Protein backbone atom coordinates (compact mmCIF):
# COMPACT_ATOMS: atom_id res chain seq x y z
CA UNK A 1 0.00 0.00 0.00
CA UNK A 2 1.52 3.24 -1.10
CA UNK A 3 1.10 6.38 0.92
CA UNK A 4 -0.47 9.12 -1.17
CA UNK A 5 -1.29 12.74 -0.65
CA UNK A 6 -4.65 11.79 0.83
CA UNK A 7 -3.05 10.01 3.75
CA UNK A 8 -1.10 13.07 4.74
CA UNK A 9 -4.11 15.32 4.30
CA UNK A 10 -6.29 13.06 6.42
CA UNK A 11 -3.61 13.00 9.09
CA UNK A 12 -3.46 16.80 8.99
CA UNK A 13 -7.25 17.04 9.17
CA UNK A 14 -7.36 14.73 12.18
CA UNK A 15 -4.68 16.76 13.94
CA UNK A 16 -6.54 19.96 13.12
CA UNK A 17 -9.74 18.41 14.46
CA UNK A 18 -8.06 17.41 17.70
CA UNK A 19 -6.70 20.94 18.02
CA UNK A 20 -10.06 22.57 17.46
CA UNK A 21 -11.67 20.10 19.85
CA UNK A 22 -9.16 21.17 22.45
CA UNK A 23 -9.89 24.86 21.86
CA UNK A 24 -13.61 24.27 22.30
CA UNK A 25 -13.52 21.77 25.18
CA UNK A 26 -10.61 22.76 27.39
CA UNK A 27 -10.80 25.94 29.45
CA UNK A 28 -7.23 26.24 30.65
CA UNK A 29 -5.75 29.17 28.69
CA UNK A 30 -2.35 27.54 28.25
CA UNK A 31 -3.85 24.30 26.94
CA UNK A 32 -6.09 26.26 24.58
CA UNK A 33 -2.99 28.01 23.34
CA UNK A 34 -1.17 24.74 22.79
CA UNK A 35 -4.13 23.48 20.79
CA UNK A 36 -3.85 26.54 18.56
CA UNK A 37 -0.21 25.64 17.97
CA UNK A 38 -1.35 22.14 17.10
CA UNK A 39 -3.75 23.48 14.50
CA UNK A 40 -0.98 25.62 12.99
CA UNK A 41 1.16 22.51 12.76
CA UNK A 42 -1.59 20.60 11.00
CA UNK A 43 -1.80 23.39 8.43
CA UNK A 44 1.98 23.23 8.02
CA UNK A 45 1.67 19.54 7.34
CA UNK A 46 -0.83 20.17 4.54
CA UNK A 47 1.46 22.79 3.02
CA UNK A 48 4.43 20.45 3.06
CA UNK A 49 2.44 17.49 1.77
CA UNK A 50 1.03 19.53 -1.10
CA UNK A 51 4.41 20.95 -2.01
CA UNK A 52 5.95 17.51 -2.05
CA UNK A 53 3.24 15.97 -4.17
CA UNK A 54 3.38 18.86 -6.59
CA UNK A 55 7.16 18.67 -6.78
CA UNK A 56 7.84 22.26 -5.79
CA UNK A 57 8.96 24.03 -2.65
CA UNK A 58 6.72 27.04 -2.26
CA UNK A 59 4.83 25.27 0.49
CA UNK A 60 8.01 24.93 2.49
CA UNK A 61 8.51 28.67 2.44
CA UNK A 62 4.91 29.23 3.54
CA UNK A 63 5.39 26.71 6.36
CA UNK A 64 8.51 28.62 7.35
CA UNK A 65 6.48 31.82 7.59
CA UNK A 66 3.81 30.03 9.59
CA UNK A 67 6.49 28.95 12.05
CA UNK A 68 7.70 32.54 12.39
CA UNK A 69 4.16 33.76 12.99
CA UNK A 70 3.61 30.97 15.52
CA UNK A 71 6.71 32.01 17.41
CA UNK A 72 5.58 35.64 17.49
CA UNK A 73 2.10 34.58 18.53
CA UNK A 74 3.46 32.37 21.30
CA UNK A 75 5.54 35.21 22.73
CA UNK A 76 2.70 37.75 22.75
CA UNK A 77 0.04 35.24 23.79
CA UNK A 78 2.02 33.92 26.71
CA UNK A 79 2.66 37.49 27.85
CA UNK A 80 -1.11 38.08 27.74
CA UNK A 81 -1.72 34.84 29.68
CA UNK A 82 0.85 35.95 32.24
CA UNK A 83 -0.96 39.24 32.68
CA UNK A 84 -4.33 37.49 32.83
CA UNK A 85 -3.08 35.28 35.63
CA UNK A 86 -1.63 38.28 37.43
CA UNK A 87 -4.88 40.19 37.47
CA UNK A 88 -7.32 37.27 37.96
CA UNK A 89 -5.30 34.54 39.71
CA UNK A 90 -6.92 32.05 37.36
CA UNK A 91 -6.27 30.66 33.92
CA UNK A 92 -9.86 29.80 33.08
CA UNK A 93 -10.72 31.52 29.83
CA UNK A 94 -14.42 31.59 30.73
CA UNK A 95 -13.71 33.85 33.68
CA UNK A 96 -11.98 36.44 31.52
CA UNK A 97 -15.26 37.94 30.41
CA UNK A 98 -14.91 41.56 31.51
CA UNK A 99 -15.43 42.82 27.98
CA UNK A 100 -18.76 41.01 27.75
CA UNK A 101 -20.36 42.91 30.60
Amino acid at each position, binding site marked *: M*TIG*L*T*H*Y*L*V*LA*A*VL*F*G*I*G*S*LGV*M*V*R*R*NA*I*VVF*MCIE*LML*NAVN*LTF*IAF*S*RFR*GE*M*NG*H*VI*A*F*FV*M*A*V*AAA*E*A*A*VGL*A*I*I*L*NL*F*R*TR*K*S*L*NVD*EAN*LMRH
Partner: protein
Amino acid sequence: MEAFFFWLFGLGAVLSAFFVVFPPFPNARAPIHSAISMVVCFFFLASIYALLSAHLLAILQVLVYAGAIMVLFIFVIMLLNIEQDEKEEIQIKFMKVVGGALAFSTTFGIVTRLRDPDFLAPISAQLVQELQDPTQYGNLKEIGRLLFNRYLLPFELTSILLLVAIIGAVIVAKRDPRVTWLPEGVKQQTARQRHGKTVLDSSENAVQAEAPTSAGDHH
Protein backbone atom coordinates in the same frame (compact mmCIF):
# COMPACT_ATOMS: atom_id res chain seq x y z
CA MET B 1 8.89 1.33 3.98
CA GLU B 2 7.30 4.75 3.71
CA ALA B 3 3.96 3.22 4.68
CA PHE B 4 5.40 1.70 7.85
CA PHE B 5 6.97 4.95 8.96
CA PHE B 6 3.91 6.94 7.99
CA TRP B 7 1.65 4.83 10.17
CA LEU B 8 4.15 4.77 13.01
CA PHE B 9 4.68 8.53 13.08
CA GLY B 10 1.12 9.40 12.14
CA LEU B 11 -0.44 7.29 14.86
CA GLY B 12 2.11 8.59 17.32
CA ALA B 13 1.31 12.18 16.39
CA VAL B 14 -2.45 11.64 16.68
CA LEU B 15 -2.11 9.83 19.99
CA SER B 16 0.15 12.46 21.55
CA ALA B 17 -2.09 15.23 20.20
CA PHE B 18 -5.02 13.49 21.87
CA PHE B 19 -3.10 13.42 25.14
CA VAL B 20 -2.59 17.18 24.84
CA VAL B 21 -6.35 17.73 24.91
CA PHE B 22 -7.16 14.95 27.39
CA PRO B 23 -4.17 14.38 29.64
CA PRO B 24 -4.05 10.82 30.99
CA PHE B 25 -3.71 11.90 34.62
CA PRO B 26 -6.05 14.84 35.27
CA ASN B 27 -4.44 16.34 38.33
CA ALA B 28 -2.74 19.63 39.11
CA ARG B 29 0.22 18.74 36.92
CA ALA B 30 -1.96 18.13 33.87
CA PRO B 31 -0.76 21.25 31.98
CA ILE B 32 2.83 20.03 32.21
CA HIS B 33 1.75 16.64 30.91
CA SER B 34 -0.07 18.34 28.06
CA ALA B 35 3.06 20.32 27.22
CA ILE B 36 5.23 17.20 27.24
CA SER B 37 2.83 15.36 24.94
CA MET B 38 2.88 18.42 22.72
CA VAL B 39 6.67 18.15 22.47
CA VAL B 40 6.32 14.46 21.58
CA CYS B 41 3.74 15.39 18.95
CA PHE B 42 6.12 17.96 17.47
CA PHE B 43 8.86 15.34 17.24
CA PHE B 44 6.51 12.97 15.43
CA LEU B 45 5.50 15.76 13.08
CA ALA B 46 9.16 16.52 12.41
CA SER B 47 9.62 12.87 11.47
CA ILE B 48 6.70 13.13 9.09
CA TYR B 49 8.23 16.25 7.54
CA ALA B 50 11.44 14.29 7.04
CA LEU B 51 9.36 11.54 5.45
CA LEU B 52 8.04 14.18 3.07
CA SER B 53 11.63 15.16 2.14
CA ALA B 54 11.29 18.50 3.93
CA HIS B 55 14.63 18.18 5.67
CA LEU B 56 15.07 21.82 6.62
CA LEU B 57 11.57 22.11 8.02
CA ALA B 58 12.00 18.91 10.01
CA ILE B 59 15.02 20.43 11.72
CA LEU B 60 13.30 23.77 12.15
CA GLN B 61 10.32 22.00 13.68
CA VAL B 62 12.51 20.48 16.35
CA LEU B 63 14.51 23.67 16.92
CA VAL B 64 11.73 26.24 16.85
CA TYR B 65 8.71 24.38 18.12
CA ALA B 66 10.07 21.69 20.41
CA GLY B 67 13.09 23.74 21.38
CA ALA B 68 11.88 27.31 21.72
CA ILE B 69 8.10 27.59 21.79
CA MET B 70 7.43 24.65 24.07
CA VAL B 71 10.19 25.69 26.42
CA LEU B 72 8.42 29.04 26.64
CA PHE B 73 5.15 27.24 27.41
CA ILE B 74 6.71 25.06 30.08
CA PHE B 75 8.43 28.10 31.52
CA VAL B 76 5.12 29.94 31.83
CA ILE B 77 3.38 26.88 33.29
CA MET B 78 6.06 26.58 35.94
CA LEU B 79 6.07 30.31 36.58
CA LEU B 80 2.36 30.31 37.37
CA ASN B 81 1.73 27.57 39.86
CA ILE B 82 -1.72 26.53 38.85
CA GLU B 83 -3.58 24.44 41.35
CA GLN B 84 -7.02 25.72 41.96
CA ASP B 85 -8.95 25.51 38.72
CA GLU B 86 -7.91 22.06 37.61
CA LYS B 87 -10.82 20.18 39.13
CA GLU B 88 -13.40 21.79 36.90
CA GLU B 89 -11.31 21.01 33.87
CA ILE B 90 -12.95 17.93 32.40
CA GLN B 91 -16.56 18.78 33.19
CA ILE B 92 -18.97 17.98 30.43
CA LYS B 93 -21.19 20.94 29.76
CA PHE B 94 -23.68 21.51 27.03
CA MET B 95 -21.50 23.94 25.13
CA LYS B 96 -18.58 21.56 25.32
CA VAL B 97 -20.67 18.84 23.74
CA VAL B 98 -21.65 21.29 21.01
CA GLY B 99 -18.01 22.25 20.54
CA GLY B 100 -16.90 18.64 20.38
CA ALA B 101 -19.59 17.79 17.84
CA LEU B 102 -18.56 20.82 15.78
CA ALA B 103 -14.90 19.83 15.81
CA PHE B 104 -15.75 16.26 14.91
CA SER B 105 -18.07 17.24 12.07
CA THR B 106 -15.47 19.65 10.68
CA THR B 107 -12.87 16.90 10.64
CA PHE B 108 -15.33 14.44 9.19
CA GLY B 109 -16.32 16.91 6.48
CA ILE B 110 -12.72 17.55 5.49
CA VAL B 111 -11.90 13.86 5.45
CA THR B 112 -14.91 12.93 3.32
CA ARG B 113 -14.14 15.73 0.88
CA LEU B 114 -10.73 14.19 0.41
CA ARG B 115 -12.23 11.24 -1.45
CA ASP B 116 -12.15 13.40 -4.54
CA PRO B 117 -10.16 11.28 -7.06
CA ASP B 118 -7.93 14.19 -8.03
CA PHE B 119 -6.20 13.98 -4.70
CA LEU B 120 -5.53 10.32 -5.19
CA ALA B 121 -3.42 10.77 -8.30
CA PRO B 122 -0.11 9.04 -7.59
CA ILE B 123 3.10 10.90 -8.25
CA SER B 124 5.36 9.51 -10.93
CA ALA B 125 8.29 7.30 -10.00
CA GLN B 126 10.69 9.69 -11.65
CA LEU B 127 9.44 12.59 -9.55
CA VAL B 128 9.73 10.48 -6.41
CA GLN B 129 13.31 9.69 -7.30
CA GLU B 130 13.98 13.35 -7.85
CA LEU B 131 12.38 14.37 -4.59
CA GLN B 132 14.27 11.81 -2.57
CA ASP B 133 17.52 13.42 -3.62
CA PRO B 134 18.39 15.69 -0.72
CA THR B 135 20.56 17.91 -2.85
CA GLN B 136 17.57 18.86 -4.98
CA TYR B 137 14.64 19.23 -2.66
CA GLY B 138 13.80 20.59 0.73
CA ASN B 139 17.28 21.53 1.86
CA LEU B 140 18.56 24.84 3.13
CA LYS B 141 20.08 25.91 -0.18
CA GLU B 142 16.95 25.49 -2.25
CA ILE B 143 14.66 27.04 0.34
CA GLY B 144 17.08 29.90 0.85
CA ARG B 145 17.08 30.54 -2.87
CA LEU B 146 13.30 30.77 -2.85
CA LEU B 147 13.28 32.83 0.30
CA PHE B 148 15.65 35.48 -0.98
CA ASN B 149 14.26 35.76 -4.48
CA ARG B 150 10.58 35.18 -4.77
CA TYR B 151 9.64 35.63 -1.13
CA LEU B 152 12.01 38.43 -0.24
CA LEU B 153 9.34 40.94 0.78
CA PRO B 154 7.43 38.51 3.06
CA PHE B 155 10.74 37.47 4.56
CA GLU B 156 11.59 41.04 5.49
CA LEU B 157 8.08 41.61 6.76
CA THR B 158 8.52 38.55 8.96
CA SER B 159 11.52 40.20 10.57
CA ILE B 160 9.41 43.28 11.29
CA LEU B 161 6.68 41.03 12.70
CA LEU B 162 9.15 39.34 15.04
CA LEU B 163 10.49 42.71 16.18
CA VAL B 164 6.97 43.96 16.90
CA ALA B 165 6.22 40.70 18.75
CA ILE B 166 9.32 41.09 20.92
CA ILE B 167 8.41 44.66 21.84
CA GLY B 168 4.79 43.72 22.39
CA ALA B 169 5.66 40.78 24.61
CA VAL B 170 7.97 42.90 26.73
CA ILE B 171 5.39 45.65 27.12
CA VAL B 172 2.49 43.32 27.84
CA ALA B 173 4.41 41.15 30.30
CA LYS B 174 5.87 44.13 32.13
CA ARG B 175 4.21 44.62 35.46
CA ASP B 176 2.10 47.73 35.39
CA PRO B 177 2.29 49.48 38.77
CA ARG B 178 -1.21 50.87 38.32
CA VAL B 179 -2.71 47.37 38.06
CA THR B 180 -2.98 45.87 41.50
CA TRP B 181 -2.83 42.17 42.20
CA LEU B 182 -6.41 41.23 42.86
CA PRO B 183 -7.15 38.61 45.53
CA GLU B 184 -10.24 36.35 45.60
CA GLY B 185 -13.62 37.53 44.41
CA VAL B 186 -12.04 39.18 41.42
CA LYS B 187 -15.24 39.84 39.56
CA GLN B 188 -16.92 41.94 42.20
CA GLN B 189 -13.72 43.74 42.99
CA THR B 190 -13.02 44.71 39.44
CA ALA B 191 -16.60 45.86 39.00
CA ARG B 192 -16.32 47.95 42.18
CA GLN B 193 -13.03 49.37 41.06
CA ARG B 194 -14.45 50.30 37.74
CA HIS B 195 -17.35 52.03 39.45
CA GLY B 196 -14.86 53.69 41.73
CA LYS B 197 -12.95 54.98 38.76
CA THR B 198 -16.02 56.39 37.04
CA VAL B 199 -17.09 58.06 40.26
CA LEU B 200 -13.54 59.26 40.67
CA ASP B 201 -13.83 61.08 37.38
CA SER B 202 -17.12 62.74 38.22
CA SER B 203 -16.71 63.87 41.82
CA GLU B 204 -13.89 64.30 44.26
CA ASN B 205 -15.73 63.09 47.37
CA ALA B 206 -16.05 59.50 46.20
CA VAL B 207 -12.31 59.32 45.75
CA GLN B 208 -11.84 59.76 49.47
CA ALA B 209 -14.33 56.98 50.15
CA GLU B 210 -12.78 54.54 47.71
CA ALA B 211 -9.15 55.28 48.41
CA PRO B 212 -8.62 53.03 51.49
CA THR B 213 -10.03 49.92 49.78
CA SER B 214 -7.95 50.33 46.67
CA ALA B 215 -4.86 51.01 48.72
CA GLY B 216 -5.53 47.83 50.67
CA ASP B 217 -5.36 45.78 47.48
CA HIS B 218 -1.66 46.35 47.01
CA HIS B 219 0.32 43.18 47.20
